[in-house]
């Protein structure tokens, strides 16, 4: 070889090409592809000779160069039409070389910059363990999220309630003692004797039973009825008294509040 180059200094095929073109002092826009291709291939030979297996990328570039070299031999004007001028086969390669050169140069600038920056020293962080005690947490609590949480909860309750209501209208209908007494009064008026179990239309739930029992107790206390039970856990019989008719159980009455409160 006419020239000696250190074989492992090239960063890639483009780097090698840049070197060869610069060395030959060729115009980048007028690369003598034949010359460069020969030199490039010589370089690859040298690499193989020195047992430095060239990377595949170097071989790809060699193929590209040979392709361009052969296309350069073809006439550039395919027809008489000047508009149909074929593109210079080298242009794509030139673009690539220029783009690469741009960053190769930028790399040099970065190196210089890093060198300057290397003249500036910083200090290591001080030992901070003494300052790093247990992590403090500041609880973030605002009224709005609290209310939102509660409203969301209420909404959920409401939705659940609506579903429940749809499936158990009757069961969910809950009476108060006062309204039950009002009912019982109507049921008992004009009757001589009524059995406790007769007070229920259909099979009552526990609530109904307790409610009715409490109502009956209240009516006994007000002396509106008399109750008899012959056996423990046996049937109770209710007998209305004369006082029943005079008892006021209407909604406006403060009766229960006064007495029970």
């Amino acid at each position, binding site marked *: 070889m006419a020239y000696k180059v250190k074989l492992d200094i090239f960063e890639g095929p483009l780097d090698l090409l840049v070197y060869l073109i610069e060395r030959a002092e060729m115009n980048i826009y007028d690369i003598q592809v034949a010359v460069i291709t020969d030199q490039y291939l010589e370089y690859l030979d040298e690499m193989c000779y020195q047992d430095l297996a060239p990377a595949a990328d170097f071989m790809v570039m060699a193929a590209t160069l040979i392709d361009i070299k052969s296309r350069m031999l073809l006439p550039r004007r395919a027809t008489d039409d000047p508009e149909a001028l074929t593109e210079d086969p080298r242009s794509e390669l030139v673009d690539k070389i220029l783009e690469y050169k741009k960053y190769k140069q930028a790399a040099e600038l970065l190196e210089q910059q890093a060198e300057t920056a290397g003249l500036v020293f910083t200090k290591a962080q001080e030992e*901070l363990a003494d300052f790093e005690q247990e992590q403090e*947490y*500041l*609880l*973030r*609590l605002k009224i709005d999220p609290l*209310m939102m949480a*509660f409203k969301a909860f209420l909404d959920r309750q409401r939705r659940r*309630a609506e579903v429940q209501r749809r499936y158990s209208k009757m069961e969910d209908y809950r009476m108060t003692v006062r309204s039950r007494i009002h009912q019982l009064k109507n049921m008992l008026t004009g009757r001589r004797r009524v059995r406790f179990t007769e007070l229920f239309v259909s099979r009552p739930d526990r609530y109904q039973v307790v409610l009715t029992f409490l109502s009956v107790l209240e009516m006994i206390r007000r002396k509106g009825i008399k109750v008899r039970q012959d056996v423990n856990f046996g049937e109770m019989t209710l007998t209305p008294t004369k006082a029943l008719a005079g008892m006021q159980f209407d909604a406006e009455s403060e009766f229960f509040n006064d007495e029970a409160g």
Partner: protein
Amino acid sequence: MKRAEIKAALETLLFVWGEPLAAGDAGQVFDLSETETRELFLELKKEYDEGGRGIRIREIAGAFQYCTDSRNAEYVSRLCQPVKEQRLSQGALEVLAIIAYRQPVTRVEIESIRGIRCDRTIESLSRKQLIAEVGRGSGIGRPILYGTTRTFLEYLGLRNLSELPPLAETEDLLEPYAEVGEAENLKNHFDNPSQE
């Protein structure tokens, strides 16, 4: 080399060295005697002291070292342990809200309202001192009654519980569906007959 330049260079050396730097060693860099160098260091030290700087120069057995102004130690602590914000989970917020609006309330009541267990959430809220045991219920086992604390009010910037934003529909909504227990229901009916 001007005096000011040497002093600036000494600053650089002190900074890079980190450990106490002997005046003699520093002086060699500039072909200065130990005495001359010590004088320059003391001048520098005086400038930092008089300037009330956050970093100072201290002398230790003829050597000099950068150090920080001890009065700023607290700020270093704050930098090293920034106060981190913590938020309550949605579940915890909900439990807290129920306790806030319905207090005093038992765990069983809260759970029956929410439909899920919340003993751990209650524990966590207690640990954060947002809620506390405020008494014992009259029911079986005399269950703990929970209420909110002064810390809770402080967090929200409220003077007292009456400043909690009103939620008009609260009672109506909860009343018919809360399976608090039949006795509770009946009690409410007696206490509040006009509800009907």
